[in-house]
């Protein structure tokens, strides 16, 4: 009977396993193989030549790549950091102030459900030096116009702001759900013991909310590292390469230069980079029950 059940279980798992093999394992293995080749789509006559680790060696000597990685990390740290802080603040406000909470929840969902391409194009027009509404408002207020996208020192901040605007609501919703799921007893006990709001927040709310904060941080971190449309549609990585992040560079190598060997090497590298960062965060903090449970 047990053997029959085991066979049935295997049979039922087979479709999912096949889908996983076909859509998950096979493309990854193929990407690894391509990353070991010199393979340019626009030069079919040259074919696919095995070059070993040459593409990975090229990565080490590619200053544009490392600059793009630094920008991607900077983007991630600032965007995730600010959206977590802002998200926590807004979630606490919404939790405390019950007035129109349903309305605000819907308002917060709007940026998240809007396609990033639409958001980016709208911001591109709003940021425009000559026609943009932000500069029109500055003009009405008798303030000097500001170059949000053409100034290399500012352009990344302009992109980060859009990312924060779009994804802070996700943090708000995750943390609000967390706050609502917290047990009431510790708070009541703290009040009876005479704890002030600051002490309650630092010693009860935050520690109990830790897992929700970390879930939001991991999701936001992976999203921020993968940012593409926001920058591509607003600045195309410019001026020069001032806003070119890792994903933009990979897309350029793969879908502008069609250098599939190098592009695959960059893709594999990014896969491991994101996995490593996520693993470090999860492992170090013990979220998802990997430590301390």
């Amino acid at each position: 009977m047990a053997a029959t059940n085991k066979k049935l279980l295997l049979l039922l798992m087979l479709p999912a396993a096949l889908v996983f093999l076909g859509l998950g394992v096979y493309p990854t293995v193929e990407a690894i193989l391509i990353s070991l080749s010199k393979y340019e789509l626009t030069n079919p006559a040259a074919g696919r030549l095995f070059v070993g680790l040459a593409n990975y060696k090229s990565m080490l000597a590619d200053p544009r790549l490392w600059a793009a990685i630094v920008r991607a990390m900077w983007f991630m740290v600032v965007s995730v950091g600010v959206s977590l802080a802002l998200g926590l603040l807004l979630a606490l406000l919404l939790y405390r102030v019950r007035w129109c909470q349903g309305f605000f929840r819907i308002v917060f969902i709007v940026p998240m459900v809007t396609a990033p391409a639409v958001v980016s194009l709208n911001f591109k027009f709003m940021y425009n030096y000559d026609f943009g509404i932000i500069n029109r408002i500055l003009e009405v207020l008798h303030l000097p116009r500001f170059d949000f996208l053409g100034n290399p020192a500012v352009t990344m901040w302009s992109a980060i702001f859009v990312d924060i605007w779009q994804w802070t609501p996700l943090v708000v919703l995750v943390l609000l759900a967390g706050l609502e799921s917290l047990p009431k007893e510790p708070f009541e006990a703290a009040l009876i013991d005479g704890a002030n709001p600051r002490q309650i927040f630092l010693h009860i709310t935050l520690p109990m909310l830790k897992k929700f904060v970390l879930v939001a941080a991991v999701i936001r971190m992976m999203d921020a590292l993968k940012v593409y449309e926001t920058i591509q549609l607003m600045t195309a990585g410019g001026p020069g390469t001032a806003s070119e992040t890792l994903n933009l560079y990979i897309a350029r190598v793969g879908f502008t230069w069609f250098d599939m060997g190098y592009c695959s090497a960059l893709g594999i590298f990014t896969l491991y980079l994101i996995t490593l960062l996520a693993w470090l965060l999860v492992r170090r903090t013990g979220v998802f029950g990997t430590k301390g449970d």
Partner: protein
Amino acid sequence: MLRKLPAILITLLALTALLVGCGEKGKTQENSADPRKAFAGTTLKVLLKTGYEAEAIKQFVGDFEQATGIKVEYEIYDEPTMRNKFILDSTSQTGAYDVVATQFWYMPEYLRAGWLEPLDSYIAEKSDAAWSSVRHIPQGLLAPYKGSDGKLYALPVSASGGVLIYRKDIFEQYKIPVPQTTEDVLAAAKSLKAAGVNVYPFVGRGDPSSASFGTSAGWAWAYGAKVLDGERVTINTPEMKHAMGDFVQLLRQYGPPNQAVIGWDVMSELFRQGKAAMNFDMSGFPSVYANKEVSSVADKIGVTLLKGPGGKYAQWMYSEGLGISRYSKNKEAAWLFIQWRTSLDVAKKEFEAGVRYDFVDPRVYEVPEYKEKTKSIEFFTSQLPEILASVDATYWPAIPEFEQVAQAFQKEISAAIAGSKTVDQALAIAQNEVEKIITKK
């Protein structure tokens, strides 16, 4: 009832075959009467880039469908997307597109890959006498579409040279002479700024994309500088430093503050809205700027050619053609479509509708209606032969790796315009990167 089912099915099949047979007979009779109807019922997939070349197809394709019975399904994208779609379709060999727009700068890449069908046999054997214009197009304009085998792989729809477009009213108001040289442009920009003109003295393309490479490389040629001399990279040269020094100064000091991220679309928007006094770009733009429906400065513009210290004309070479995908399953119908698109008939419709006034077929300029229609912009149309004669393709890096080379160069120029690098630093980096691309080749 079930027992009768096979008999019913056989009867239905026979009736269907009879109807189809009659239909085919009818179609053949119709076909023999009109050779243009030979491919009636075919559906052609056409891949196009945004721009006035595609606008004519959008507006007049119904005429082609009516004349041939061929249904045309077109897709219009920005240039990088269009190129991606063609490359991905060609590498998968699916033949999803029959006709594709081919920018001249990608021709070496497409020809090396063998993704386009040679047109010579179609021209020799299957030309439509009324629509075919290939024998009228100057050889110089056909040259970018020829392979090393001497065969023609696409027909040009448009061709541009480099021109300075300026605001006549502003130049008259401030009594500034019309620039004839790159030096004059800088002097005029300086005078306008000093006079406190309330528009940007100059606007051009300064973003890091390859689509803006034509502006900087074309400007450089006026100084005798070019990116490649055969296989040799010639970016970090005194001529190029002089050229890019002037160019970056022009855009940085006299252009909009966000000049380093401005591509052709914003540039055109700014000029059409009357926010700039000068614009150096391809000769396709005066047609757009002179169109009252989209431009607030339609009757205020002048056009002139520019020479530089190298004694050469500043260039903005561009040409777009139409080719047949090697993997198309409807090659003859595709050829009929290309002939229609490049015909004198369509050109007449284009200028009548104000879509454009510059054409590759010189017969258009002799059409009385064209002369009548373009009276108000004669200042431009009268210069067209001279503008096209000024085109000098020798400066262009016509290699399959164009996209990489153009981006490597232009991103550095964009950075210099933004002020994050000096021109010398930018050119030294570009030299190094382009050398790597050429060596890797």
